[in-house]
């Protein structure tokens, strides 16, 4: 290989990395802005974009930053502490129940023989194309009839049986739980529940991790649901409370950014813990699906 081509190769290499860095900056700047803005005073918001210049460490006037916005969030009538607890409860419950229900149904559809299995698979596939916006108004009316409005039951029950979850777990079972292992366990005398819980679930781990994140995030970011189902202020999750804060404290940017930061951090942490599973689960679903 000639020296010229090697040179052009390393030039491409530099160019590619430079482009990746530029994109990284575009991705990171808003996130960084969110974090630093949460610690600014109202005055600071008008005076500087990111951090105040000063004499402190790294040339930043750290003492001009404040925890006051966070404090206001928790102590004022916004009551973000309760909203945070509500969101954690709603999302964790939905994630655990939804994952168990979908994994069980998906596993049964893929690995077990029973009368009506074909119709069940057909139903799941048909359900994938039901458009969510169509159900908004009738669901509200139906939950009213059932007396489930303004209750967590009315918010959680419709969220823990998504058909695409059954489909994902059916695919994952076909892919990563060999039939021979199921047969072997059956010969050893294990029942179907035992095989599902002890043998299949651990083998489905990447999908379990991915689906926990998907369902947790879906409920955490669910806005229409609580907006329609819940009425009492003290039952609202973060998504609605932050929206209401934005409406009520329109130009109180520091407070808004602090509230957003508090809302986003738990999800980021959960994701970092489970991200390896998530990406592999997502990627396998995309390519094989």
């Amino acid at each position, binding site marked *: 290989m000639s020296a010229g081509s090697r040179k052009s190769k390393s030039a491409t290499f530099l160019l590619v990395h430079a482009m990746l860095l530029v994109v990284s900056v575009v991705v990171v700047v808003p996130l960084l802005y969110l974090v630093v803005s949460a610690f600014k005073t109202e005055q600071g*918001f008008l005076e500087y974009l990111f951090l105040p210049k000063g004499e402190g460490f790294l040339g930043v006037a750290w003492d001009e930053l404040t925890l006051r916005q966070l404090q206001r969030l928790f102590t004022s009538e916004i009551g973000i502490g309760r909203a945070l607890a509500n969101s954690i409860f709603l999302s964790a419950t939905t994630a655990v129940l939804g994952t168990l229900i979908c994994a069980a149904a998906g596993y*049964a559809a893929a690995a*077990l023989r029973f009368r009506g299995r074909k119709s069940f698979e057909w139903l799941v596939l048909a359900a994938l194309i039901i458009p969510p916006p169509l*159900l*908004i108004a009738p669901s509200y009316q139906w939950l009213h009839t059932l007396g489930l409005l303004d209750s967590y039951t009315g918010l959680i029950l419709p969220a823990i049986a998504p058909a695409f979850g059954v489909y994902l777990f059916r695919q994952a079972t076909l892919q990563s739980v060999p039939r021979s292992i199921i047969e072997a366990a059956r010969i050893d005398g294990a029942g179907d529940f035992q095989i599902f819980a002890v043998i299949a679930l651990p083998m489905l781990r990447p999908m379990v991790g991915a689906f926990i994140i998907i369902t947790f*995030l879906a409920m955490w970011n669910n*806005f229409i649901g609580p907006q329609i189902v819940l009425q009492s202020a003290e039952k609202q999750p973060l998504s609605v409370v932050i929206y209401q804060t*934005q409406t009520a404290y329109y130009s109180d940017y520091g407070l808004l950014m602090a509230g957003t930061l508090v809302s986003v951090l738990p999800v980021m942490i959960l994701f970092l813990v489970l991200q390896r599973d998530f990406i592999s689960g997502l990627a396998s679903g995309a390519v094989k699906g």
Partner: protein
Amino acid sequence: MRSRVNFAPYLLIAPFLVLFVVFTLVPLIQAIPLATSHTFGPSATQYVGFEKFSQALHDPRFWTAMRNTLLFTAGSVLIQLPIALGLALLLNKPGIKGRGFFRLLFFSPQLVGLVFVAVLASVMFQKQKGLVNTLLASGADWLRGLPVIHANSWLPSRSELLGIPWLETLALPTLIITALWMYAGFNMVYFLAALQNVPRELEEAAMIDGAGPWKRFVHVILPAIRPVAIFVVLLSVIGSIQVFELAYIMLRDGVGVQDKGLTLVTYLFKSGFETGDLGYATAIGWMIAIMLASAAITQRFLQRREMTA
């Protein structure tokens, strides 16, 4: 042995089946009578036939919402997906340092969640003190400082840039940019997974045959990732047609100045829960359903052609 029925499979699918029937199937069936009703509160209804549908077809706000939604969808697909694919191609180059890190980083805006991205964006796109306009103004100042550009007057002035009305007049472009920031990395993950399944030898063979980068992309890579690309386009179209939270939270009154950011789902939501016309909301829901179904059918058609080709 054979005659004994094994109940285990039924018990495993039962929780899903019961919840699905009660909370998805029943509302789906109710969407038929509800779309042909006028409601008085959630419980009292009166049959009005297809009145709600003809009301929509004669409602200028409905058509504004339709137009905005389609423009947003076109903008999202035509701008965002090429960028997502471009990023995936960059990351798929051999010898990239920190591929996993970049993938995670580009994906991370997705984790912030729609509601919170909307609140963040609504602060960033403010006039005067917003981050976007301030950075644009500083950028222009820097350019003016360069000797070459110094004399040129075409560069907008500082006050012009600080006054760009993103959330007012430019509602749709603002929504498209925000969605781009949030979803480009998400779609990139799909493209990257597809690219990593393309055998390197394929591209190398084409290179030896003298195909340049563009030729290799069009004739080797694009055909190889076509199924995933069609799938990503479909997901993107389906998601964009249902755009709601970004617009509703970022824009004034949820619709922006003069309905410039009114979307179909926003209009559905407002009709059902602010005006209290559940019948009209459901009729709009059916219209959205028809649009989503056409998108899915088009995808089916494209993929079938793929198999026969």
